[in-house]
């Protein structure tokens, strides 16, 4: 960090870059409904995802009521319970997390962070959102059809998914599969945009290795999603055909309720391979954007450059590549050749290496940093803790002999909730607290934010830590009630009650968060252009919130990487990416308020005003 050059020749105005033709909305509807502006589409995605996510949150509350106090609530029948479990899982993984990280944050942050005016295919981007909304509506519709939504579990394993003992085996499963197919079509439209925008629309000077890690994370997650979602698409279509037309892709010959069914010779394991070929990359589709964002949150709020940037990028690429060759570790109990299991156990454990590198680098970035315990930083540190906890139990479950007895117990539920539910959602919260000022121009309330953080963070530990013990005791997952079972002691039932109380508190606390989002939109403290004094391009826009086109008259030019925090000898503890390496620019910085400079001079012009002109 000591080789900062002070090159006077650097002071050259930016050459005019060819301007893409922007879409110019004229009416309210054109601006906010049928919008082609990635930032508006991002907010549409986010609101839809959070809305359907709240449904899934309520469902999980009902499930916990049943688990904590079985036989008390008459409105929860065994069928309903299975349906709530299924819909909770599917909504949270696909319709909330995937849509929010890629459709929400991806749309908002990619063009701003790479210095582009918009996505490269804005029209396709708009259609992507509307197809996503249609998929969500189909999903919601399945609550209102005869038989209700499918109760097959979020993995939708055949044959039980379409046998008539399973709730929603008629309409429910078909609507689920069709909704997934539409989700994938919509996502592919958006995903093409994210990938091509990162590859082709970077502004001058923004090399791949100068991209903020947020963009790297979203980029790689999108690549994974584009290649993995076709597996889910194929399985959803085949499942629909098996259900609706009576083909036998997945359905073996079987006797159900004394009746020989017409199915013959299909392979349920084929479905499992297809599903998990999608399902495991899906974990990283959710995790990689979270990894990227948390890197930026930690660097910004610890006022330190990210430790091992190049290693972080390569870890993201390695995790992405490896995630395609570990899928069968979800199928150890499906019966497989032991060598096959050995191979997948090995690849699974290898993936711990790049993941651990990332964790070390986050901790080393915090090490002796100038840590500001802002709300985004609290969530980021909470993420690191939770991710380590969830990751360690992953080492248990990755091994075949340890996985076999723990399979389908609460231990698995605790593991994946820690690692791919709580961890990413903590990053989502941190990211919302971090970027909300840019999106709305106002800060979120700090006190409410800290309240939200501590209750959510400690509350999720109160929920999921004890669940590991339940799993080791052998308490199975997805069971409506386990009362009257000898091997489950009374203490386990008391623990279940405690978990339920914690879960209801954590669920209720989210109301504070929603209230904060709405209240701050109207009454929050004005944020200014760059409240966190961050280096990346989205904070250097001339207006906050950024107008359509993002960067005013001229696109910014990038001169440095995204992590010039606390550079020795620099006047400020951050140097924006678009500030040229020049003594004059540094002199100017001392005389002007940094926020004002960031908002007006650098952002608007791409290069600072000449000395003395202010």
């Amino acid at each position, binding site marked *: *960090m000591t*080789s*900062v*050059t002070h*090159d006077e*020749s*650097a002071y*050259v105005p*930016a*050459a005019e870059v060819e301007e893409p033709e922007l879409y110019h909305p004229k009416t309210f509807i054109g601006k906010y409904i049928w919008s082609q502006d990635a930032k508006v589409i991002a907010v549409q995605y986010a609101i839809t995802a959070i809305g359907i996510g709240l449904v899934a949150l309520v469902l999980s509350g009902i499930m916990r009521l049943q688990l904590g106090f079985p036989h008390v609530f008459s409105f929860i029948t065994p069928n309903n319970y299975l349906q709530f479990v299924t819909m909770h899982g599917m909504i949270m993984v696909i319709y909330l997390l995937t849509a929010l990280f890629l459709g929400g944050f991806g749309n908002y942050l990619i063009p701003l962070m790479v210095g582009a005016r918009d996505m*490269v*295919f804005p029209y396709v981007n708009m259609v992507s959102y509307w197809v996503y909304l249609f998929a969500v509506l189909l999903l919601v519709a399945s609550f209102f059809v005869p038989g209700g939504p499918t109760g097959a579990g979020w993995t939708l394993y055949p044959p039980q998914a379409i046998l008539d003992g399973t709730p929603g085996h008629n309409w429910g499963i078909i609507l689920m599969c069709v909704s997934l197919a539409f989700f994938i079509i919509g996502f*592919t439209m958006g995903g*093409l945009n994210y*990938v*091509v925008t990162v*590859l*082709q*629309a*970077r*502004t*001058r*000077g*923004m*090399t*791949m*290795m*100068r991209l903020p890690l947020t963009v790297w994370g979203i980029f790689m997650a999108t690549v994974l999603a*584009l*290649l993995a979602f*076709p*597996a889910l698409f*194929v399985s959803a*279509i*085949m499942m629909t*055909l098996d259900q609706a*037309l*009576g*083909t*036998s*892709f997945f359905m073996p010959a079987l006797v159900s309720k004394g009746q020989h069914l*017409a199915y*013959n*010779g299909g*392979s349920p394991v*084929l479905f499992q*391979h*297809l599903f998990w*070929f999608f399902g495991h990359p899906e974990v990283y589709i959710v995790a990689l954007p979270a990894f990227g964002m948390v890197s930026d949150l930690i660097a910004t709020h610890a006022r330190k*450059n990210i430790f091992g940037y*190049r290693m972080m*990028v390569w870890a993201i*690429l390695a995790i992405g590549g490896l995630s395609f060759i570990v899928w069968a570790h979800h199928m150890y109990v499906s019966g497989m050749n032991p060598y096959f299991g050995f191979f997948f156990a090995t690849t699974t454990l290898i993936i711990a290496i790049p993941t651990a590198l990332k964790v070390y680098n986050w901790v080393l970035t915090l090490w002796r940093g100038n840590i500001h315990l802002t709300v985004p930083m609290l969530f980021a540190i909470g993420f690191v803790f939770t991710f380590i906890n969830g990751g360690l139990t992953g080492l248990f479950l990755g091994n075949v002999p340890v996985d076999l007895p723990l399979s389908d117990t609460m231990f698995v539920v605790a593991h994946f909730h820690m690692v791919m539910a709580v961890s990413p959602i903590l990053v989502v919260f941190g990211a919302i607290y971090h970027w909300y000022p840019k999106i709305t121009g106002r800060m979120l309330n700090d006190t409410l934010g800290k309240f939200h953080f501590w209750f959510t963070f400690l509350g999720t530990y109160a929920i999921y830590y004890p669940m590991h013990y339940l799993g080791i005791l052998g308490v199975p997952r997805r069971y409506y009630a386990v009362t009257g079972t000898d091997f489950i002691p009374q203490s386990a039932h008391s623990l279940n009650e405690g978990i339920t109380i914690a879960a209801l508190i954590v669920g209720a606390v989210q109301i504070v968060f929603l209230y904060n989002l709405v209240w701050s939109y109207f009454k929050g403290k004005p944020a200014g252009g760059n409240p966190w004094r961050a280096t990346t391009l989205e904070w250097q826009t001339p207006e906050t919130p950024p107008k359509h086109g993002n960067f005013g008259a001229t696109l910014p*030019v*990038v*001169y*440095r*990487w995204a992590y010039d925090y606390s550079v020795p000898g620099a006047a400020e503890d951050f140097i924006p990416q678009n500030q*040229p*390496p020049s003594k004059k620019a540094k002199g100017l910085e001392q005389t002007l308020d940094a926020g004002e400079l960031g908002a007006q001079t650098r952002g608007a012009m791409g290069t600072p005003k000449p000395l003395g002109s202010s």
Partner: protein
Amino acid sequence: MAIAVGWLLRQTLNTKPWIEQRTVSHVDGEGALPLPSVKVGLGVFLAVATSLFSLLVSAYFMRKMGADWSKLSVPRVLWLNTGLLLASGIAMQWTRAAARRGQIDGVRSGLIAGGVFSFSFLAGQLWAWQQLNASGYFVTADPATAFFYLLTALHGLHLLGGLWVWGRTTAKVWRGVDVGAVRMSVELCTVYWHYLFLVWLVLFALLLST
């Protein structure tokens, strides 16, 4: 895949972003591919489609291990259809050459020929469905037949997507726009048609041989 990895290596190895502060004269060539964005977009889409069809082929082989597998009685009309799809690809290639030379008349007739061959191919596929059905093999008859309907349907839907772009391009040519305004669409269509022909060859070979 190898190209993508090689490109990434060139982008990322031996760069030290934390000490480099390249100035304006050096910031050109940020590493964007030397291609128009729409071509990159098509390339990414073809990667997605390749993933889709590879997974279908893998599923086909896994399902084929089942005891109830029997070979598909391939309708003879598929040979004709293969020829039609090849002809439509050749017509597209010819259109592309005409577009490069700037001959709008050549583009117009080439597009029409390509469209006619493509629609004939789709009609031929439907005819093959009809023939199979008439000889007692509907989608539920046996797994190979089910795969036949599934594979041809998905392949046909991809071709329909291409025909939508073809339709827009042809409409533009009809309204009398400049060749330059449609050259890119014609190039993209040509690449896409060749790709779909290759996919069809793989699927057809699969259906014939197993």
